[in-house]
């Protein structure tokens, strides 16, 4: 990496790296542990996991189990106190890699208020690309693309304070899309939204996943993870369960409840219908498939 970065201007490095590889980013943890220096308690204990490029991962766990900390390891906001974290093969502990890692992995937090920096919609979207030192026409292009993507282009000159909660969260998404990351980390990004804004935000995430971006989604609502590929459950800083989301969702109502979650009613309905022999359906079917089978 070093000789290339020495030859290219700073902004070239990023477009070069995203052009060369596929859009999705791989995330890899090896025996990762985390604890704050003065604290006694380990927040994360020896976590090994690999997230492949373009995968959609649901990261579940009770409040305070260490999910947010895990996400922060992925974009080098925190460094593991033991073990390693690799992003597209780059160790986050290496010096001077934080910027390249953060241009590959972006995070969206729960409260949009906490992550919007500028007072005007388009200026906030430009914040990331500006930090990367991109040339002005490129920044403008990215801002336009990102705001169009989330449906806020018409409101680009509006003050941030005039946006609704759902719009603010979409702005936060635009702000990271303008960086063109290979992976999106969502830290309960939908928990403060009302159901309709939640749905439109989730649709945006599905679209980004469709483009090939890796998605890591922390949530409490299993309705939101139906489209994910795999599920990881963190309890007390340890990876207590992992496997295919289909496998997870096909577990019995009670065992999911024991793990501290509520099974989505649609998944229950589908299973019951398959069980009682009314319809045959693949495990990964949603309400639309059920309607189709029932001729609705």
């Amino acid at each position, binding site marked *: 990496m070093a000789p290339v970065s020495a030859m290219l201007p700073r902004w070239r490095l990023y477009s070069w790296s995203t052009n060369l590889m596929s859009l999705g980013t791989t995330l890899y943890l090896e025996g990762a542990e985390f604890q704050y220096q003065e604290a006694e308690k380990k927040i994360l204990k020896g976590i090994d996991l690999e997230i492949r490029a373009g995968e959609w991962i649901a990261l579940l766990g009770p409040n305070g189990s260490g999910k947010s900390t895990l996400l922060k390891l992925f*974009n080098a906001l925190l460094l593991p106190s033991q073990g390693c974290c690799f992003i597209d093969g780059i160790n986050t502990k290496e010096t001077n890699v934080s910027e390249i890692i953060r241009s590959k992995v972006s995070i969206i937090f729960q409260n949009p208020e*906490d*992550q919007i*920096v*500028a007072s005007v919609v388009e200026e906030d979207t430009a914040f990331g690309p500006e930090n990367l030192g991109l040339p*002005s026409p490129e*920044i403008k292009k990215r801002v336009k693309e990102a705001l169009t993507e989330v449906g806020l282009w018409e409101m680009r000159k509006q*003050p941030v*304070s005039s946006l609704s909660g759902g719009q603010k969260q979409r702005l936060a998404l635009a702000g990271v899309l303008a960086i063109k990351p290979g992976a999106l980390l969502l830290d309960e990004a939908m928990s403060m939204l009302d159901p309709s804004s939640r749905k439109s935000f989730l649709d945006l995430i599905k679209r980004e996943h469709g483009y090939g971006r890796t998605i890591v989604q922390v949530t409490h609502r299993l309705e939101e993870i139906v489209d994910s590929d795999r599920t990881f459950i963190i309890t007390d800083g340890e990876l207590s369960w992992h496997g295919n989301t289909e496998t997870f969702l096909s577990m019995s109502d009670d065992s999911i409840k024991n793990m501290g979650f509520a099974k989505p009613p649609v998944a229950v309905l589908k299973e019951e219908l398959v069980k009682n022999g009314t319809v045959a359906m693949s495990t990964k079917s949603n309400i639309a498939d059920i309607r189709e089978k029932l001729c609705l």
Partner: protein
Amino acid sequence: MSLIKGVTLGQYMPADSFIHKLDPRCKLFITVLSMVAIFISDNFLALAMWASLILFLTKRSKIPVRALMKSAKPIMILIIFTSFLHVFFTGGDDIIFSIGPLKASAAGILMAIRIGLRLYLLVLFTALLTFTTSPSELSDGLEAVLGPLKRIGFPAHEVAMMMTIALRFIPTLFEETERIINAQVSRGADFHSGGLVKRAKAYIPVLIPLFVLVFKRADTLAFAMEARCYRGGKGRVRMHPLNWGTTETKTAIAFIIFVATVIVLNRCA
């Protein structure tokens, strides 16, 4: 959703106007120059000229005059208080009335009106600046103007960034403060009765959650900024680089001529 939202000071109002499009450095120059000039204007003709200039600029920038007037509201008490002091402490022979040892002279009253007007015009002028210039533009302008000081170690970028964030969070903090006040009033907090000490004490349950929230917010914001590749001013560029064109030069010259005229009038009249 906020009671305090009525406060318009320091808020940007986007519009498509020639003043909105001016280079922020030009606007900063004009504002600073006019601050000085308004401060040395002491005759009423000069002040009237300033008032009409502000009215003209407001019209040109498509800002409702009402919104501009409203922006001075929170500072009104300060202005009135200052004027009030001048009524009694200017001195002069022709005493018009007196309250105890305080004597109000005709000169004092005139002085009070002048001072009050000056301060009011100053506030309006700065409000006009913030109405027509987005916080980021303003901080860009500030950073550029303070740029030369970087050489002697002045953190121009940091100061500008702090200003951007401060302006960004003013509406949020207002809302937050209001919610905290509501929560405590619901639990019987009383800010209106008792002596000064008691009333000041009543604000503790508001200030503590506010500070805690501000620190938490600052913490997450720092993470969010870092996550979006922020590493300070080094290597950072702007989407709209500052551009000082002929419009700016013309505006600045026109403004200098205006100021010169006002100063001359101020001397002669």
